[in-house]
């Protein structure tokens, strides 16, 4: 009875007694979730178009942030540095297509996945060699102050992160739905061979998706970097994006967003209200267990395509 009360009643009573604080926790969770979504979005884009599970997405975030900070430190203006970083990520996309993807065409997915793990290590060493490994402060002029609204403390930085993530999603949606390249991307995602047969160049498409994923990585890198400094641990958020993907489904852009929000909010609420019962720090694994429990009920994720198997 007391265990039941501790686990179920106690935390709920806490929530009820201080709704403003609960609101703060939820908003904090939503904003953290937005950032997870940004990373997950990069995964989804590449997976949709090429079926490659890009483990290096987290390091691409780190690499983009490192490049941006390095350029700003060397006296470049914020916008110049941004443009240069974007260019670097596009060049990187070309290099990856040429050096990694093209020789591995027609290999099983698992081999490509391993290749991106190798890429992960390579980029990590490369980025740190170019720009140094110490923690850097990233400041692109986003205000980082807190204000009160309806009795809740809200951080401006987190708010603008949410805003930018929302804008990015809208832009991506328009890009996918309305432009010529976006249509080609969707065609490739649907059926490689059919897309090839009507004359869509697969290689160009790959470069485009990896570039777009690189640009998304820049945005994610700016947000995370402004929040907690540019450092190696940035690449670890890639691991946090994995449960997000599982929840949302590997093929779905809206899934990445919704999954990120669920994981972000669930993680924060779990940590604040249930964490103390088991000694805290459950944020590390809570997302995975949540995703795991979810997988048992719906193996293809919230928005994933139903898996139909044939022999």
């Amino acid at each position, binding site marked *: 009875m007391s265990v039941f009360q501790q686990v179920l009643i106690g935390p709920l009573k806490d929530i009820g007694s201080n709704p403003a604080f609960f609101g703060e926790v939820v908003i904090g969770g939503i904003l953290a979730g937005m950032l997870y979504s940004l990373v997950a979005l990069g995964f989804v884009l590449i997976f949709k178009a090429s079926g490659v599970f890009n483990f290096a997405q987290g390091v691409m975030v780190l690499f983009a942030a490192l490049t941006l900070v390095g350029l700003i430190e060397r006296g470049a203006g914020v916008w110049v540095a941004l443009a240069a970083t974007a260019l670097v990520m596009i060049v990187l996309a070309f290099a990856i297509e040429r050096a990694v993807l093209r020789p591995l065409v027609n290999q099983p997915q698992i081999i490509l996945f391993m290749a991106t793990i190798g890429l992960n290590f390579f980029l990590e060493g490369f980025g740190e060699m170019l720009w140094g490994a110490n923690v850097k402060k990233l400041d692109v002029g986003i205000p980082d102050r807190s204000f009160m609204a309806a009795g809740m403390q809200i951080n401006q930085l987190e708010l603008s992160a949410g805003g930018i993530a929302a804008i990015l999603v809208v832009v991506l949606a328009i890009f996918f739905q309305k432009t010529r390249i976006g249509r080609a991307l969707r065609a490739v995602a649907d059926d490689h061979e059919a897309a090839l047969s009507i004359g869509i160049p697969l290689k160009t498409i790959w470069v485009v998706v990896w570039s777009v994923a690189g640009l998304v990585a820049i945005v994610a890198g700016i947000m995370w970097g402004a929040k907690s400094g540019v450092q190696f641990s940035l690449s670890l958020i890639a691991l946090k994006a994995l449960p997000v993907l599982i929840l949302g489904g590997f093929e779905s852009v809206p899934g990445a967003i919704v999954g990120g929000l669920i994981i972000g909010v669930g993680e924060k609420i779990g940590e604040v209200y249930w964490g103390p019962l088991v000694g805290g720090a459950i944020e590390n694994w809570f997302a995975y267990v949540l995703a*795991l429990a979810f997988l048992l009920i719906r193996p293809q994720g919230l928005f994933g395509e139903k898996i139909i198997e044939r022999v």
Partner: protein
Amino acid sequence: MIYREAGQFKTTYAADQAIFPILQDRIFVALAVVGAFVIPVRFANEYWLQAVLIPFLIYALAALGLNLLTGYAGQLSLGTGGFMAVGAYSAFKLASAFPALNIVLVFLLSGLVAALVGVVFGIPSLRIKGFYLAVATLAAQFFLIWLFNKVGWFVNYAPSGTITAPPRTVFGVMVTGPDAAAGARYVAALAFVAVFALIAKNLVRGRVGRSWMAIRDRDIAAEIIGVRPLRTKLLAFAISSFYCGIAGAELVFLYLGSAETLAFDINLSFLVLFMVIIGGLGSVLGSFLGAAFIVLVPIFLTNVPHTVGLNLPVALAKQIELMIFGGLILFFLIVEPHGLARLWQITKEKLRLWPFPH
């Protein structure tokens, strides 16, 4: 010429089904095993034993375990570090709770505990597969490490949170603890690896291994011809975790001496996975080759600049090491997706005809 099996006729079924059907292989393996037991103990110095050979053997055992699961049964796992931690912590608990228990028995029992945990975390594999399963095994990795960090019982409430290997003897020779000689620890590790490699080799060519491969290649078809997926997959998780658990216990007891959970973090999982990929998925020999490669490359990379008179700063050397490491993984995947074991097979084919290839 060297590898020509002409003239080696098999007149019994037993001979036809031998582990090493070719005479040259039998001689080579026998020589290698005897050599591995005798030569390093006599001639290798402390540094070689401690820095190269002991970690190589332990990683080889872990890679063997993961190879059974990922290479043979096709279930991708990123939870190896967690399962190794289970082995290490249960060995520590068993050794401190029952001081009279033989250390070999402690290792085997801790392997069993790891197998049990592996089965629990293998249950999702019945419904999910591929990348989804890989992420699910990450849950095992993070949850187990967190558990060992948080619950003081696992470390006997040591304030430092570390587990240390108690001194224990086998046949009157000290093999674990601070006073154990490197040679003795080497022989202990080697004995374990030799026995378990033999068991693995026999497992994968028997009924169990074949049902694993059937599940790996096409699970629905395997089910139709009568392979039970539930039993087969869970058995793969159990045996793989058993191997990993023993490797984890050895890692602390025979190699590190003392460790905390940091030694078993996600990087260890990736390291063992690389050994399996670079060595060759679905190959017992590949596990050894991959482990040797991963153990030797960092040592090579740290020593080469010194010998040519180049003094790189530590940070730079570390970064270059990462780059070369990543580059090599890419290189091997592109050139030979089947790993070092496949290269060895090609060499063998060449050696059959050498020196008259036409």
